[in-house]
């Protein structure tokens, strides 16, 4: 390297200063607020307390967290079950087709997320397109409840976050080289076995990344539970949001936010650690 550490510091410092002011300071403030009290009419009273954390440790809020984790997990699993085969299908096409197919999958995500969520309301409601189609086909009488439940929330999440699953898996598959992918995708008699023993382990970092990319935003999303869940269940995002806005309880909202960040951070560190271990194992295998 020609220029030394001083030059490098000059390169990174503008961005790091930016983050010090607009990321570390704000998140630090939220952390600080979580140790203060709510003013009687909102706002923060600077009296130090641990009470907020005691309040957060409540079966009620743990239940909300549990439900959110469940929805986020369901969304992740469904995304993986769809995303992996789709990525595999694209990766095994001839090179000139791959970009086209990839664009075809990504394109819907370039229309507004809110508008697509609204479209699901139009489709899934009791008098909506899905129910009328089912009635026309004589499959149901009356209507099936498709909207304002957990099903609708998961549909919304998957249709929002699916590309975040497909892209990293596709990238991982493509890195394997065409022959390996084709060989493994050649779903013959031992297809499942080969899938498990060859493709999945080799693309594990991509799968893990995809799962994190879907799980994390699903957990904090509060628009989809509100619009598609009909507000009938609270998720962590809804809870945080309602503490800040509806209850005007910034300290308690901050406490919930801090707990959420801590949980997600632990999750990501765990994934990084797993990733490192698997790359170490890979190195060992190669050395052998």
């Amino acid at each position: 390297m020609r220029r030394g550490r001083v030059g490098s510091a000059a390169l990174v410092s503008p961005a790091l200063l930016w983050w010090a002011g607009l990321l570390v300071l704000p998140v630090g403030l939220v952390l600080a607020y979580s140790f203060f009290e709510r003013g009687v009419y909102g706002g923060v009273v600077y009296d130090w307390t641990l009470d907020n954390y005691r309040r957060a440790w409540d079966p009620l809020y743990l239940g909300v967290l549990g439900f959110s984790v469940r929805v986020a997990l369901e969304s992740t699993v469904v995304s993986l079950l769809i995303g992996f085969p789709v990525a595999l299908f694209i990766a095994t096409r001839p090179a000139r087709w791959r970009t086209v197919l990839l664009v075809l999958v990504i394109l819907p995500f370039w229309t507004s997320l809110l508008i697509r969520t609204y479209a699901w309301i139009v489709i899934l409601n009791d008098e909506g397109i899905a129910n009328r189609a089912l009635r026309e086909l004589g499959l149901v009488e009356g209507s099936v409840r498709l909207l304002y439940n957990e099903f609708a929330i998961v549909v919304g999440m998957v249709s929002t976050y699916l590309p975040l699953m497909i892209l990293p898996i596709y990238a991982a598959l493509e890195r394997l080289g065409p022959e390996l992918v084709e060989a493994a995708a050649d779903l013959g008699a031992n297809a499942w076995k080969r899938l498990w023993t060859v493709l999945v382990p080799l693309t594990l970092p991509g799968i893990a990344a995809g799962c994190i990319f879907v799980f994390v935003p699903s957990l904090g999303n509060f628009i989809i539970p509100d619009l598609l869940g009909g507000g009938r269940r609270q998720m962590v995002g809804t809870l945080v949001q309602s503490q800040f806005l509806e209850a005007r309880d910034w300290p308690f909202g901050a406490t919930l936010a801090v707990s959420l960040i801590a949980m997600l951070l632990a999750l990501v560190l765990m994934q990084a650690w797993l990733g490192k271990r698997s790359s170490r194992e890979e190195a060992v295998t190669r050395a052998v």
Partner: protein
Amino acid sequence: MRHRPARVAILAALAVLVVAIAASAATARPEQSVTLTISNWDAYTPEDLIPRFEKATGIKVKLAKHTTNEDIMGKLEAQNGGGYDIVFVSGPFAEALRKRGWAARLDHKKIPNLKNLYPGASKLAYDRGNRYSVPYTWGTTGLCWRSDLTRQPKSWWDLLRPAPALRGKITMLATDRWLMLPALKVLGYSINTTNPAHLKRAAALLEEAKKNLLAYDDTTFYSKLVSGEAHLVQAWDGWCNYGIAENPKIKFVVPKEGSDVWVDTMVVLAKSKNLDAAHKFLNFVLRPDSGKSVTELVLYKTPNEVAMRSVKKALAKQFPNLAIPPKKLLTYETERDLGKAQPLWSRTVSEIVG
């Protein structure tokens, strides 16, 4: 001005001078260049109100829109009670703004049109004497229903313990104060109760009621009635009118246990640098013709007695809630800020919804 021809030249020159001076003096007057920043709910300002105000006073208005009380309160919290000259919020939030010290004390001398209000509209508990807020619209909460699909509801029980045919065809309001209201009313408690035992009993009823609910909905319940997804919804009277406008088979009723009188108010912020212009705006909204256009275009009742008298009779026939007499309305309780009990209320709502 008319003058003799002989002096025309001189007078014309003088006139030009006078006009020029007057014009420059006028532009130097603060109101001419003043811009008021006002935030109201989306679709809650009659289209002609702002242009007429601007034309009448020369004051410019920048109209921002919020979706909920909570939304605008969050913005004010972030800006330490600044950023706007006037905000439209419901009664208890006006009370909170006053207690935070963010609401300006109103100068009644500058709002002579306050005399147009019903006497009762100045005695509401969240701000007696309209010292910090001026009511814009008011009304009550009740049941909005499809008369062709279900029989007339009479009691809040019809919402809380619906007939089997109504299960899954019901929505309730999502915001804490109105979500709790039906249960508090059937139990005979105050809608401002801070008694944990009261809240607990109400929560038990509401948890049971949730099983029969299609959704909690603050904004689109009327379109669910129109489409037939819902047959009976808890609704604010004015908002039920949006459904009635599309389908006359939709009706509104206040259950026999009674309800609330909610008030949407205008609050001038203490940080405003345009207090004079802000008072002019309040006074302008209280003009009878302004109040009339609020009712006729937004379909909400206004506490403006003179304005309400001028509203077309046919309208009250089409939208019967407009005919609810203020005397009747004022027998109901109005929402107050919950103060120290707010966290308990929020937890109770989480218990029901979560």
